[in-house]
Each structure stands twice: as structure tokens, then as C-alpha cells.
């Protein structure tokens, strides 16, 4: 009886913490249907679909959102490629200097973002580099590479790389070996890392704040305007929906893969 009670209490507490995680999210979604009295969407006035019917009402908000998507795509491609090849080098080969590389890739993840952003700003000022799209991409790739390398490393550890040699011994060309052996091994990890990179780039505020100059990403626009029309909540809700769909698809895909490998 006592045991059941303690189980119940633990489950209830866990439920409350999950609820705490979702309250602000619920607020975001609900307030996307608000018709605010003033320009600030802080107080509930009345239900309306206005923001959903006209999400691009504010040109600067729309262009900032498009900017963020573009930056996210460029950053994802660069970071996924260079992070993955580094991860492959670190997992596949035994060589001197590995420890140094392993330390270097986790270092940026252990620093406060303000420091990363400010140190980059300082670099750009010293070399007289105008801040804008280019500097934002540089900064995002810098911290995303660490995430990609760490994620991919974790996913491909323990694989027997001598299989590649076996393929070559059996007469496969390097390209065929890559397509049939190497790529299928690293693909799930790279895909997960790419999604993470895109999400991180889209969401980054702190580092971008220091290096963006006059360029506006979505978070920077939200910060600078300091007026929060419900359109912001519409964009936020859409991002959340996209993330939900992708993670459900990811779970289903990995289930199918497990099922296939069980056969």
C-alpha cells in the first residue's frame, strides 16, 4: 500500500513537472489567437484568427523569418559536412592528436554564449569585417560543428570499419564502398545532427546578437522590436509543429529500422 502510494506520488510529481514545461508553450499557442488591445500581445482580449489569416502582415518580421530559414539551411549544410568528416576521422582512425581534437570540439559547448559571441565580435572588429549575413553564418557554424561532431561520433562508435576494406577487397570501387557501406552507417547520425543544427541555428539569439550588425534573424527581430504582435506566436507555433512532425517521423523511422533489422 505504502509502495503504491509512493509510486503514485512520483508519477504525480513527474506529471506536474511536465505540465510546468508545457504551460508557457500553451500560452504561446493560445495567444496566437488573441486580438490584443494595444500593440503588445501581453493581455488576453478576445479570440481571433487575424494573425493566422495574415501571418506576413509585418514585412520586417516576415523577412527576418525568411533570413533565419536561409541562414539555417546554409549553416546546416556546412556544419553537417565538416562536422561529419571530423567525427568519422575521430571514430574510425587511431592517430596521434586525437585527444586534442576531442577536447577542442567540446570546448565551445562549455563556454557561456555571451563570451563566445563577444569574442567573435572582438575578432570581427579587429580584422575590420563588416557584420552581417556572413558573420552570422560563421558564428553559427562554429558552435554547430561541435554539436554535429559530438552527435555523429556517438552514433557511429563501435562500428567495424574493416567492413570497408572487405568491400574493397571484393572489388568494390571507393565510390561504391562509400555508397553501399559507409553512407548507410553514418546517415542516421548525420540526419539527426543536421536537424539539431537547423533547430539551433534558427533559435540562436545570444551569439547572433553580437555578430549580426544590421542583419535581422527572427529572434533578433523579436528582441529589437520589443513589440510582440500575435504573428510572432504564429511563427513560434509553426516551428513547434514542424519539430513535432519531424520528431514523430524520426521515432517511426527508427522503429521501422529496428523492426527490419530484427527480421
Amino acid at each position, binding site marked *: 500500500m505504502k509502495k503504491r502510494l*509512493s509510486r503514485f506520488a*512520483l508519477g504525480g510529481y*513527474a506529471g506536474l*513537472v511536465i505540465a*510546468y*514545461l508545457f*504551460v*508557457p*508553450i500553451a500560452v*504561446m499557442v493560445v*495567444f496566437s489567437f488573441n486580438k490584443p488591445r494595444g500593440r503588445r500581445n501581453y493581455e488576453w482580449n478576445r479570440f481571433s484568427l487575424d494573425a493566422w489569416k495574415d501571418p506576413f502582415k509585418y514585412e520586417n518580421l516576415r523577412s527576418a523569418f525568411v533570413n533565419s530559414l536561409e541562414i539555417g539551411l546554409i549553416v546546416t549544410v556546412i556544419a553537417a559536412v*565538416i562536422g561529419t*568528416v*571530423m567525427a*568519422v*576521422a*575521430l571514430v*574510425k*582512425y*587511431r*592517430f596521434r*592528436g*586525437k585527444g586534442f*581534437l576531442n577536447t*577542442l*570540439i567540446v*570546448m*565551445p559547448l*562549455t563556454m*557561456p554564449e*555571451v*563570451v*563566445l559571441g*563577444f*569574442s567573435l*565580435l*572582438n*575578432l570581427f572588429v579587429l580584422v575590420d569585417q563588416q557584420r552581417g549575413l556572413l558573420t552570422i553564418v560563421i558564428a553559427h*557554424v*562554429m558552435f554547430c560543428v561541435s554539436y554535429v*561532431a559530438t552527435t555523429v561520433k556517438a552514433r557511429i562508435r563501435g562500428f567495424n*570499419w*574493416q567492413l*570497408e576494406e572487405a568491400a574493397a577487397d571484393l572489388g568494390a570501387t571507393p565510390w561504391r564502398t562509400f555508397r553501399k557501406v559507409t553512407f548507410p552507417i553514418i546517415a542516421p547520425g548525420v540526419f539527426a545532427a543536421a536537424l539539431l543544427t537547423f*533547430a539551433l541555428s*534558427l*533559435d540562436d*539569439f*545570444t551569439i547572433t546578437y*553580437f555578430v549580426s550588425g544590421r542583419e535581422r534573424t527572427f*529572434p533578433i527581430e*523579436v528582441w529589437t522590436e520589443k513589440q*510582440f504582435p500575435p504573428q*510572432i*506566436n504564429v511563427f513560434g507555433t509553426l*516551428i*513547434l509543429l514542424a519539430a*513535432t512532425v519531424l*520528431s514523430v517521423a524520426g*521515432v517511426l523511422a527508427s522503429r521501422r529500422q529496428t523492426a527490419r533489422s530484427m527480421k
Partner: protein
Amino acid sequence: MAVEAKVGEVIPRRRSIPWLLAAPALVWLLVFFAIPMVLLGRESLRSGGLANYGDVFSGYGEVFRRTFWYALLATLLCMILGYPLAYFIAMRARRARNVLLALVVLPFFTTYLIRTISWVILLSENGPVPKFLRSLDLLGDSSSIIGTTPAVVGALAYNFLPFMVLPIYVSLEKIDRRLLEAGPDLYASNWRTFRKVTLPLSLPGVFAGSLLTFIPAAGDFVNSTFVGGTTTTMIGNVVAENFDSPGLRPEMSAISFVLMGIILVGVLIYARLLGTEELG
């Protein structure tokens, strides 16, 4: 092959191969992470030398104290909220496990700033939380939540909670279940089994989670800007407000180094306390 490689590992045919693969990312990290750090150190000593650091301590001692106090409180709050949740997911949830993990992560795919703005709505003068607390007489009519220490600490804890939950979950999930059965078999109470077996084995997760919460919380300025007030300024706010005035850059660089220095010392002390140095 002269040297035996570990299972799965390969000795490169030419020594340059792994370095060539690593080169693009390596160069990127050196040029845009390592070198900027060195330059920041140099900048912190410009036009004043070490005296810049003295200025930082005398001018911003109070802000630093507040920053680390907030970060510490937020980390503790995350532990109190996160450990039982991680324990429940790892030990009790069974089939619902993946769904619960997804629920923990999902809110964090919403833009950071929007999440924080939601807290402004919830906590503002006439927002739902103060109204609710007033109806229970837990909050005076003239007092508010927004702009206070609990508001900032609560929002910080909220924003970094998954970083606490996930590492603890991973370390709990790894525990060999037979060890947990051995406790009751030897007539230890559940509480004693938890204290002597489960908790020590999950400390690496608690350690990692604390760092992942404490470090970003100590550098944050978004939460204190939105839900804080004039009395809740954190050190990140100082850097964020002054970064673009060239005259203040040496001082802001010194602040960055003091921030990193204190974090490093704190992490080392914490590692010693938990006895997890080998985690490195």
C-alpha cells in the same frame, strides 16, 4: 599491419588521412573559437593592463555575486524538478518512455525568446500567476512577481531544465537493474537502496546536468531582461549593453574572462565535492 587497432578502429594508410578529414572543422574551430579567445585575452589587458581586472571586481562585484547566486539557485531548482522526473522516466515509465522524453525536449524547439515572453505574459502585473496567488492570499495586492529574483530564477530554471533531465536520465538508465534488486534482497529499505546504490551511480548525470544548466544560466541576459527588473541585472546584461562601445571593450573582455574563470573554479570544486574528477 604493424600496430594492432582496437576492434573497429583502423590504422590510417597514410598518417595525413585523419588530419585531412578533420581539417575543415579544425580550421574553423581554431580561427573562430580558439584565436578569438586569445584575442579577447589580449583585449582585456589593453589600455590599463591588469588594472582592468581590478576595475571589474570593484565595479561589478555585486553583479557578479548576484549572477552566480541566480545561476546556483536555478541549477538547484532544476535538480529538484528534474531528478524525480528523470527517475520516473528511467525506472517506471516503461512503454511511455520515448513519449515522455519527447515531451521533455519538445518545448525547447520553440524559439527561446518566445518561451521567455510567455513567462512575461504569465507573470505580468495582471497575469494569471499573480492573480491566482492573490486569490489564495499568497501574494499581497501591492506586490508583484515580475521584476523580482524568483521570477528570473524560475525563468532561468525553466529554460535549462531539459539539460538537467536528459543527462540524469541517461545515467539512471545505464544502471544495472540487478544492483537495484540486490538492495531489497539484502533487506535494505527502498530509501536506503536509493541512497546507497541508485543515487551514487547517477551522480555523473547530476554532474553533467548541473554544468549544462549552470554555465548557460550564468551567462544569460535574456531572462533577466524580460522577466527581471532594475534590481536583477546579471553580468550578461552588462556585456550585452556595452559590447558596441569601443572604449568599454577592454573592460567587457576582462568581465568575460572573470566569468569564465569563476565558472572554471566552480566546476573544479564541484567535481571534487561529487568525486567525479575522472569524468573530466
